[in-house]
């Protein structure tokens, strides 16, 4: 007689997240200091200053990604139970690696994730640190993996899954235009910001997954994760609209970006002071090290460097008699949400890319280097990155490469037939094309308002 109670997490998005297969392995990974640290990194960084409920963490998100990947694997197992060469990839060792990679994909995020990524060149890509942490002997992850029978080669394969896999459909679940990461963060962020139109029909998408051959001439022997052509199209359309709206309303929200700009300027000041040995003496050792080394810190320092410790440091800086005036003012105003920066939107389409460069030049000439008095935030958003149809005749190799990398694919589930890019069937995707939504703003210290207005006046920038 068995009496087995499964391990479940209650989750605001998915209801119950149950860890059954590979339970011991996954729970031990969840219980590492590396993964527990994600409880102390919020998913949306400074967004809670704009959307008060956006306090959810990368810990919950990572469990959500594991959950969705497990469900995709289940859908495919049922669909391809009678196809041994596929079924074998969806079970046992391969599935285990996919789930581990899904669970651990965000380990490398720093506090205020995307702000710290923009702060220093060594922190540019959290994925690189996530990958390192999966194999690095000073991290507890490889120890857990070895204990559960992973060979060194399998650990490397798990790490590489974040980049690619010989069987690309396994990688597609973790990183593609329709991956578990994106599906979880959209639903989670939509729920916790209260922005309802960020939602979409996850159940139907998960139920629609199947496989098909990559349509690119060079990669036709590779199987890709696709949506069933009779089921998935409309749900995918809803997802792309959700992503667009979330980007325009939440991720690219002007005031959110303003607080991000303030933190970037603050980090710049901290790094400048650190280089001169002038950080206030109250600064905790690991935070001091992080700024001295501009993010290139060892594993132990990285583990300590989380949002609570950084926020506590801002509190110390905000009252320290040894802070520089900027460090003190920016820390205090951030903690109390007292806005000291202003925002000006640079309105396209009147501005060509070279005009933006000229504006940046003029800002540097008049107000000094970026991040001291001002930040130019130019970050156009591309809802769907697959190439336009016309590229197929102009530069076919590049067209197929773009399709292979970025398109959402539809298939009838036959693994011997080519998948088609969704824009072939979907009017909505065809209309979106590769359109870009411009998001260009200048954030600056309020006292420079007159100069900024002058610099941004079109007459002064056109040559």
């Amino acid at each position, binding site marked *: 007689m068995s009496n087995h109670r499964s391990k479940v997490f209650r989750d605001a998005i998915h209801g119950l997240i149950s860890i059954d297969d590979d339970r011991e392995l996954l729970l031990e990974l969840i219980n590492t200091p590396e993964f527990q640290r994600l409880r102390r990194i919020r998913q949306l960084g400074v967004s809670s200053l704009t959307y008060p409920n956006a306090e959810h963490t990368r810990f919950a998100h990572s469990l959500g990604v594991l959950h969705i990947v497990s469900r995709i694997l289940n859908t495919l197992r049922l669909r391809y139970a009678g196809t041994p060469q596929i079924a074998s990839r969806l079970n046992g060792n391969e599935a285990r690696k996919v789930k581990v990679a899904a669970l651990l994909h965000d380990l490398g995020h720093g506090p205020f994730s995307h702000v710290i990524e923009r702060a220093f060149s060594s922190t540019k890509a959290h994925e690189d640190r996530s990958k390192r942490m999966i194999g690095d002997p000073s991290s507890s992850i490889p120890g857990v993996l070895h204990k559960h029978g992973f060979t060194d080669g399998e650990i490397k394969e798990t*790490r590489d899954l974040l980049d690619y896999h010989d069987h690309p459909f396994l990688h597609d679940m973790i990183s593609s235009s329709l991956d578990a990461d994106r599906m979880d963060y959209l639903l989670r962020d939509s729920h916790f910001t209260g922005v309802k139109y960020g939602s979409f029909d996850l159940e139907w998408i998960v139920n629609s997954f199947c496989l098909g051959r990559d349509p690119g001439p060079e990669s036709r022997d590779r199987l890709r994760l696709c949506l069933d052509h009779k089921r998935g199209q409309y749900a995918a359309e809803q997802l792309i609209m959700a992503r667009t709206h979330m980007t325009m309303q939440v991720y690219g929200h002007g005031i959110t970006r303003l607080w991000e700009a303030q933190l970037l300027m603050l980090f710049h000041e901290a790094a400048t002071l650190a280089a001169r040995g002038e950080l206030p003496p109250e600064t905790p050792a690991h935070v001091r090290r992080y700024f001295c080394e501009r993010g290139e810190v060892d594993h132990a320092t990285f583990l300590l460097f989380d949002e609570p410790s950084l926020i506590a440091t801002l509190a110390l800086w905000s009252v320290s008699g040894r802070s520089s005036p900027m460090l003190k003012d920016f820390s205090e105003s951030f903690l109390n949400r007292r806005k000291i920066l202003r925002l000006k939107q640079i309105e396209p389409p009147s501005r*060509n890319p070279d005009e933006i460069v000229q504006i940046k030049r003029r800002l540097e000439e008049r107000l000094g280097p970026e991040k001291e008095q001002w930040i130019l935030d130019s970050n156009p958003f591309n809802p769907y*990155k697959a190439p336009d149809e016309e590229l197929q005749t102009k530069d076919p190799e590049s067209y197929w490469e773009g399709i292979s990398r970025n398109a959402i694919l539809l298939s009838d589930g036959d693994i011997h037939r080519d998948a088609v890019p969704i824009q072939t069937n979907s009017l909505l995707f065809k209309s979106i094309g590769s359109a870009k939504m411009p998001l260009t703003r200048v954030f600056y210290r309020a006292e420079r308002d007159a100069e900024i207005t002058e610099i941004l006046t079109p007459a002064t920038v056109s040559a």
Partner: protein
Amino acid sequence: MSDSFIPLLQFFVTTGEVVGRKKCQKMIHILQECGHDFGFDFKLALYGAYSSALQAQLEDFVNYEYITEQPAATEVAGYRTSTFSASDRGKTVLEKLKENREPSWKALAVFLNEQNTRDLEAASTILYLQKEDITDRELQEKFRRLKPHLVGIFDKGKALADRLRGGSRATA
């Protein structure tokens, strides 16, 4: 985007003519691997190192007429491929920005442009894979799995990658 504008425009003015988006991708990836930052993030996938931001900026450059695209002008490995060159407008913009001096990476860009796309693709993939701790055998095995169509030129690509890495060390 604004940070990569000047180096990318310099790239086209410097090289005169580049055949195909793929070659642009590989050349700029290799230039970055050799320490010349153009501001692009490259990811590895089916076809090797690739930057979506660079691809989007190439389209922008064509649309805003900083560069001229001659569609399907040249044949590379069985595909008709576009040819790109800096337009008069592109050159004027660079002059106006007072950035028409020779970039430090000019000789390297010219050298890369003389290589064929397939060799650059092999070298770029090898340089990317070598960012991780990897033995020669693992490198060869990964390359074979990622780039079955380029297995025949692995040694050539490896020699090119070694030469590029050596060169970047010598100038560093």
